[in-house]
């Protein structure tokens, strides 16, 4: 009896631990929360403004940079082949650095290590363009983040951050995006916060923006102090969100309101 009781308690504990997590079958991209006009905008590559950055990224991919005089394409040749599926695996654990690196971070590491070029600023046109071009090669492929045991502690930290109440409004990300994603906030749908289309074109921004920009905007929204671009906290949050969305298809460059 005791043994059965233990199992019952364990099962109940497991049940509460996962109570707020969205079941796999219910995971929905922000795309499914949008109206038909915004969807049509994303679906047509000649009306999706994100493609402007992808085009720029294609140009930058071939342009030589830094004192090494090398372009991305000189090492990685055709991005359509070499970069296929790469974005679906980021952020990834970098063994040399002993910490997770997101796609923007990887591009800048490549610049400093192999091109001997200065890193590109976060949210600069160049970095967004290169990230969008690389990520677009994985469009339609399922997100694979979350299987690497080296990354697991950082995903756990990201999860901790996701569920920690903070800011003047004392809200955690999970309060909206796990618990209330089927409701509305000021008339707009609360989405699940699945990072399936970054970098993406936000109509509000009138520009492409990174996942970190989106996270910082949300953190400011709960009136907490936003972490700096490239900070470990944001990368951990990215790692958790990508592992939370594993199996979902990448849409880069997505369009969102």
């Amino acid at each position, binding site marked *: 009896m005791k043994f059965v009781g233990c199992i019952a308690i364990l099962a109940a504990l497991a049940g509460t631990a996962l109570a707020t997590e969205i079941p796999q079958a219910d995971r929905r991209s922000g795309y499914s929360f949008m109206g038909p006009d915004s969807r049509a905008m994303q679906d047509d590559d*000649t*009306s999706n*403004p994100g493609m*402007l950055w992808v*085009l*720029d990224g294609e*140009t930058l991919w071939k342009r030589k940079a830094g004192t090494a005089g090398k372009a991305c394409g000189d090492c990685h040749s055709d991005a359509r082949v070499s970069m296929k599926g790469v974005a679906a695996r980021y952020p990834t654990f970098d063994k040399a650095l002993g910490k997770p690196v997101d796609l923007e971070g990887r591009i800048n590491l490549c610049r400093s290590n192999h091109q001997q070029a200065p890193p590109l600023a976060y949210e600069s046109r160049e970095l967004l363009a290169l990230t969008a071009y690389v990520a677009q090669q994985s469009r339609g492929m399922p997100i694979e983040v979350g299987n690497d045991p080296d990354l697991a502690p950082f995903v756990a930290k990201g999860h901790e951050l996701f569920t920690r109440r903070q800011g003047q409004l004392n809200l955690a990300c999970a309060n909206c995006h796990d618990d209330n994603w089927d409701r509305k906030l000021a008339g707009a749908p609360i989405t699940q916060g699945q990072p399936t289309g970054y970098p993406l074109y936000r109509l509000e921004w*009138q*520009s492409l923006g990174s996942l970190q920009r989106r996270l910082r905007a949300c953190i400011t929204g709960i009136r907490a102090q936003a972490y700096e671009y490239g900070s470990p906290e944001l990368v951990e949050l990215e790692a958790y969100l990508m592992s939370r969305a594993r199996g979902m298809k990448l849409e880069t460059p997505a369009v969102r309101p």
Partner: protein
Amino acid sequence: MPSALINVPSKAKRGDVIEIKTLMSHIMETGYRHTASGEVVPRDIITSFTCRFNGAEIFRADLYPAIAANPFLTFFTTVTESGKFEFEWVGDKGFSETASASITVE
């Protein structure tokens, strides 16, 4: 590095009404915003868009500060012969970009 996205059908039947879609990369800075230190951010917008078909102007639009960044302009025309559409965007700070697309009319 401004870039344009053009969507013109490559083929059409004589007399068909076709849709032309254009998307131009531009920040469309209104001229009404201020920096943190109070200085006006100078206006930087596209002021004019023109489409010519085989040299003849078929569509023109004037653009103003209320138009969003990366203007997406779409319009319809009737095709009577094969030829080339030429697009031109002109704006502040000497902005001038062109693009073209050909169509075969059967």
